[in-house]
């Protein structure tokens, strides 16, 4: 068994930012474990632009954004291992990984940052009946095949789900010569960005069908078509609206799930809403010294916020390594009235942050609302929003004065006030 102060699981945007920030806080004994053969994580296959407006004030592609952080990590000579998969993490922070050159290695860490991202919800999880031939892909798998391997999954495509990956893939497949016949969305609204609806669908006259879903898949060896139907207000398909669309490929963009099997083994408590850990304002989970950030904590839509959150996690991990955990009162942050969740979930009363960032998602589309934070019923913070949607994470920053108010409270509530659905 070897010893390390800080082990970071995952070399994608979250892990890289955490490593950079931990180094800049003085930590030198860092190890990044990455299962793929290069650093950068999922950004490597996101070759479209639109990354980094907040962080770098310019629009980068995924690989370019990753390269900025990879450079930072390399400049600092932070140790990383590629093609190395973590197979276990214990609650006393022994991280077990394997690769072809080192074999099986156990690392006793003082702190662990889990930055291992999320996975896509597969067909089975959404219960689409029908045949089980080739041609059904999650959008991310198709993205990898097209952008990394250079293979086209199919020529006539239907996409289920209008999340950003689905929209991006509609354009991508069109660019590579496929015909995207429709994007089908169960909900009456899209969870993707408007910009992507305009530039990935409307630009190419790809129809976006709201309140529809795929109810059957036809074709023995390979998909030959799908049957779609409109759904009622309880999201149940209405058989009389069924229509057949001929296609050879069905892409699924039906949600992302934090990948938390390792965390579970380490007894990390997970939120039933996000699927990620419940963390305090230092990004620490219920297990002392285990931190989470990025998509393994909750699924983000902008990588800039992943970086920001992860830099905080890296810095807090170093503070923990040097000073140990704070033994103090915690206030749980309650989310009501349209707010589904907030990260962090808890506030440490002893922390002394100059500012604190709260990230949250709403459960539906609301217009003309105010996002408020109250401490024992007293409004501490309010932010008026013309529109909030489940697809766009809300991000608010509180100053030290406001934080002081919250820390004294017995109950912190975040809610949407006013407005209409």
């Amino acid at each position, binding site marked *: 068994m070897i010893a390390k102060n800080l082990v970071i699981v995952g070399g994608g945007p979250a892990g890289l930012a955490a490593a950079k920030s931990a180094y800049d806080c003085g930590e030198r004994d860092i190890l990044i474990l990455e299962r793929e053969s290069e650093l950068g994580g999922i950004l490597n296959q996101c070759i479209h632009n639109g990354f980094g407006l907040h962080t770098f004030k310019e629009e980068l592609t995924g690989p370019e954004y990753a390269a900025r952080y990879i450079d930072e990590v390399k400049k600092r000579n932070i140790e990383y291992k590629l093609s190395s998969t973590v197979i276990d993490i214990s609650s006393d922070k022994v991280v077990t990984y394997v690769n*072809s*050159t080192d074999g099986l290695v156990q690392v006793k860490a003082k702190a662990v940052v889990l930055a291992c991202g999320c996975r896509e919800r*597969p*067909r*089975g999880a959404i219960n689409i009946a029908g045949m*089980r031939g*080739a041609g059904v892909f999650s959008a991310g*798998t198709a993205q990898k095949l097209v952008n990394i391997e250079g*293979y086209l999954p199919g020529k006539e495509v239907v996409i289920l789900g209008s999340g950003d990956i689905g929209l991006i893939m509609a354009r991508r497949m069109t660019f590579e010569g496929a015909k995207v016949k429709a994007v089908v969305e169960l909900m009456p609204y899209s969870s993707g960005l408007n910009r992507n609806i305009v530039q990935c669908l409307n630009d190419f006259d790809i129809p976006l069908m709201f309140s529809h879903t795929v109810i*059957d898949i036809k074709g023995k060896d390979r998909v030959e078509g799908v049957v779609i139907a409109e759904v009622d207000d309880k999201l149940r398909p209405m058989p009389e609206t069924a229509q057949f669309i001929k296609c050879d490929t069905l892409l699924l963009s039906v949600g992302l799930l934090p990948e938390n099997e390792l965390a579970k083994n380490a007894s990390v408590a997970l939120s039933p809403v996000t699927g990620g850990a419940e963390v305090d304002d230092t990004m620490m989970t219920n297990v002392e010294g285990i931190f989470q950030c990025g998509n393994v904590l909750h699924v983000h839509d902008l990588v800039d916020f992943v970086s920001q959150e992860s830099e905080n996690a890296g810095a807090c991990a170093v503070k923990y390594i040097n000073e140990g955990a704070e033994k103090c009162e915690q206030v749980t942050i309650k989310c009501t009235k349209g707010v589904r969740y907030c990260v962090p979930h808890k506030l440490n009363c002893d922390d002394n942050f100059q500012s604190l960032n709260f990230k949250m998602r709403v459960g539906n589309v609301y217009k003309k609302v105010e996002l408020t934070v109250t401490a024992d019923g007293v409004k501490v913070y309010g932010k008026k929003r013309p529109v909030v949607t489940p697809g766009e994470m809300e991000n608010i920053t509180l100053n030290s004065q406001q934080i002081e108010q919250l820390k004294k409270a017995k109950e912190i509530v975040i809610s949407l006030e006013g407005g209409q659905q």
Partner: protein
Amino acid sequence: MKDVIIIGSGVIGSGIARELSRYSADIVVLEKGDDVSVGTSKANSGIVHAGFDAVPGSNKAKYNVAGNKMFDELSKTLDFPFRRNGSMVLCFDSADIGALQQLYDKGVANGVEKLSVITGEEARKIEPHLSDKVVACLLAETGGIVSPYELNIAYAENAAVNGVKFEFCKKVTNVSKKDGTFEVTCADGSVYHGRTVINCAGVHADEINNMVCPEKMHIVARKGDYILMDKTAGYLADHTLFQLPTKMGKGVLVTPTTHGNILIGPTAVDVEDKDNVSTSLEQLNIVFDKASLTVPELSRRTIITQFSGLRAHEDCDDFIIGESSVEGFYNVAGIESPGLSASPAIATEIAGQVATKLQLKLNSHFTETRKGIPHFATMSNTERQKLIDSNPLYGKIVCRCEMVTEGEIVSAIRRPVGAKDLDGIKRRTRAGMGRCQAGFCTARVMQILARELGEDMADVTKCGGESFIVEGRTK
């Protein structure tokens, strides 16, 4: 001239091939798919039934009880997953306890050991997640679970090692007998001559029989939908939990799999098209709702996939096993439940009959044991280290969900009767069988298959035929 032509490489065809490979004989197995275990044998409940269900005196009863007893040793010899987890038949209405008792009596008549009727309370002590509504149950301690395709593959590999030839993409279109010799013609034009033919064609066994036998057969494909749940739901059941058939219907089972998932199903719908393995939303909902009666805690959130399988139901409602009226033509047909449980006994019986007929001599080079692919996920860390030392490819995890290494995938391809497509890799290694359902490993497994088989990635299929994964290069 072949001594034996076996049609079909499901668990029956492969099992017979393996048992016959104990003898010196020229044996070929003709399979219409591109791999073994691609029909009924791959998509079923994976249950080794105790044997209380079949009508006393029937072939089903006889071979089930005999087959069940063979699994402990066979699973060690051929290295496939099997566990004697015991099964329970649940009774939800005290009015039905009589039927439960009848089942017990039938079991005793069939020679099933270790049967008992226990109360609902006692049942819940053994299975704490069982419904409160269970009033009594028949406990059969000899019931077990097996990985059906791994049993099938183990049989085939061992048969191949002992000289049996497996020929794929050989759809038999005609069987005839001239001058004491059988002529078997395939769709691709190839012709095989043999002294004997063993018909193990599953749902298509009637078609094969009817080509050559005057006594006609009729098999209906009875489709059953299943739902597979994540391993995180695995704690919900340890025994195989059947529902006592009532006038309300047959019920569905809830069972752990040998790999720790929970499997629920099947329904039963007779279908015209014997290749139709599509699931239907309606049937899947029935499966889930009925299974929830047994284990109310089942959650749709833990579902990872659905599939359906076809059972070969012959009109006579029993296994048809043995030489037909055409000398040298053997039928092993109508092998529906408990066919999997019966398969070792059937294989031994038919191999014995054919060997006697052909007066075969024992094969002095017969290798009885087969070692499966190393299973990295279930090893100790010391074993893992040793494995990686022996071959660094075992240090490369390809499938995260099931922790499958590149070494295992390469082994699956290079073995006798090796994998040629994604589904073949999945059945042999579990890569792609986990909760992400191959989202992450598809591209990687395609690369490995292409490299090992000397193909382009565009040639890689999901399950042979036209099931190509990708269209071609983008540029």
